[in-house]
């Protein structure tokens, strides 16, 4: 299964102010452990990537490519391949410079590529509840998810 992740940074005033940055990583479940998926970086290609970008962030941040092109923006694409047939955990760390807020959001992709779980910046429960939910859904130790989150929280 091929995996696509994005990082972006946007600064726009029209039609409303958005100053948001986010970057993601993916983990594959192997022997009840979450193992990072290696990825390679490439440039964003509008026509090729617009749909995947919107699909990745439409539900997480309620944001789309069209929001980004309204102002200054950078998008980078990270691609990887995994052989094993197990779920993938995507972790996105973000910083909202308008609200002065930062955090971590999750997505789980099933073995067949279908979306199993997604967070949402506006409606998701507190981080600790979500960590528990992710650990239960993947059948891993909660501490393991916590340590991944810690790493990102320190980075932002």
């Amino acid at each position, binding site marked *: 299964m091929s995996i696509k992740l994005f990082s972006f940074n946007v600064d726009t005033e029209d039609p*409303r102010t958005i100053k948001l940055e986010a970057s993601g990583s993916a983990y594959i479940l192997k022997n009840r452990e979450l193992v990072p998926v290696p990825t390679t970086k490439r440039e964003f290609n509008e*026509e090729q990537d617009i749909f995947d970008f919107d699909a990745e962030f439409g539900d997480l941040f309620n944001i789309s490519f*069209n929001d980004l*092109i309204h102002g200054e923006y950078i998008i980078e694409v990270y691609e990887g391949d995994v052989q094993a047939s197990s779920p993938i955990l995507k972790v996105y760390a973000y910083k909202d410079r308008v609200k002065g807020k930062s955090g971590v959001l999750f997505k789980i992709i099933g073995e067949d590529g279908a979306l199993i779980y997604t967070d949402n910046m506006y*409606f998701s429960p507190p981080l600790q509840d979500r960590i528990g939910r992710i650990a239960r859904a993947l059948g891993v130790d909660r501490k393991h998810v916590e340590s991944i989150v810690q790493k990102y929280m320190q980075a932002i």
Partner: protein
Amino acid sequence: MLESKLFLDLKENGEVRVDYKKLRNASAEDFARIADKVRPLLMPKLGKDYNLYLKTRPELREGEELITYTLSACPYCNSLLRAVVFKRDGKVWIRKVCPEHGEIEELYFGDYEMYERFRRHQHDGRGNLNTHVPLVAPCPYNCGLCPRHKSHPALINIVVTNRCDLSCFYCFFFASRAGYIYEPTLEHIRYMLRQARRLRPQPAIALQITGGEPTLRDDLVDIVRIAKEEGYTHVQVNTTGIKLAFDADLARRLREAGTNVLYMSFDGVTPYTNPKNHWEVPYTLDNLRKAGLGVVLVPTVIKNYNLHEVGKIVKFGLKHNDIVRGVNIQPVSITGRMPRKERDKERVTIPDVIIEIEKETEGQISRYDWYPVPSVVPISRFIEAVTGEPKIAFTTHFACGAATYVWQENGEIIPITRFIDVDGLLKFLDEKADELEKGKNKYLVFLDVLVKLRKFVDVSKAPKRLREGKRIMRLLYKVFVRHDYSSLGEFHYNSLFLGMMHFQDLYNHDVARVMRCDIHYVMPDGREVPFCSFNVIPDLYRDRAQKAFSYTIKEWEEMTGQKLIDLKYRRNIKKLLSGEPYRRHYEGLFDIDSIPYEDHVLASKKFGIPVIE
């Protein structure tokens, strides 16, 4: 199980058609299952219905100043293009380049200063927790609603028929021109209404029943009842009002079934500017008075046609504001393809209409009295923060619509801004909502609101009824401190709501606007599609979905024993002109006696409505 014999007809050209006559007795649950199967077949397809041309960035020229970039569709092939929004000569324009069809430039907003003032009031929604379709295509080819949509619905539209008793020259929608009859059964309507109420955290509570001409359905009153049963607290019917001019009982029955208000087209005060229903409106208004059913007048404004009459339309509303609750003006949305020169004759935008009203009312309603739709978000935000319950928030794009409230006293028009510091109050409520969201003690915030609210109101300048006993202050305290909205009717008493919504077309289309849209249509396959996708790209949404669930005209005529052609309205102008209501309603707005009978007849016929002579 009905869906096992889905009666599905897949034509070679990819057209999907359900054999609708076999579904006349299907239940709402049957329709839910059928819609689930048909929906994916009807979604727009990349490469077939549209292409992506995102590499070409339209250039700016000398004298032009960049405002922003956005995405937009090509008026000729529906493809998704990059567009630039820019300032030139004090106005705002949009330009895009299609590799197949060249450059397209259009006026976006007729006044840059107003654009900037409105932009400062933008508030976005938080999206929806659940949606009707997964994210499978770029916006606007994924309607809807898809997970990236930013607003919850403020108003759901449901088309209950595409039959119409008129044949307006500019309309391609009505049955005889479309070539099929779309008229969902009551159970199908129930299914659609349920679909539109599914969204969380904020399901729709307001519904507009529309057509075609909905009053042509004998079971319209039942549809209103079903809407109420399904949880819609506000139901409005969109009509020309013609049938209601002759059927007082229908007005009464609609009111009794729970219709809250009618939306009635009204394009001007003279027969020249409003050949659609000029002669019938006085009789309709009288019948609505008898039924106690309020009405909002809905003028479509075209530059070279009726822009000069918008002030008079507002005055007509004020003259009859015992029954007219509002005037909701719609600058024209250009349907079909039209060369630039022709478009320039018609094109008018929100600022152009606002400035014209300012001129025609001699400044009594000034441009600064208008606020963009999302400006009221601080009110719902504050109430939501206090009550902890989700509230309807009007989070459209600021360029989509504007509104104000006016009262009339001793011949003088008093806009709300004359006695309420609207900017100050909205800013104050936004700050209080921030404080509440950050966890500040509710009672301290209330105390502050209680003390400071008076700062924003000049009671001495309020209309008499709101001035007496400082009623306006009591009202505001009730709403913002006690959250008691029962007395809001008193605020609206004698007031006239003035609204404006500039529905898009493919020339000025902006993805940033449609993805914030809060006026949606529920379609027969259960999708909820923003107005400006449903009507702006009708071949991919409205027409495709409705045709799939339609009868052929022959089937419908056999089924009902009626002939479509026999339903066409024929106007008796002589009779309508000679009735007392006609003069009473138009007196003082134009010189009634100066228009010869022949001109009346010509105006009606030119528009496409035959006359009984």
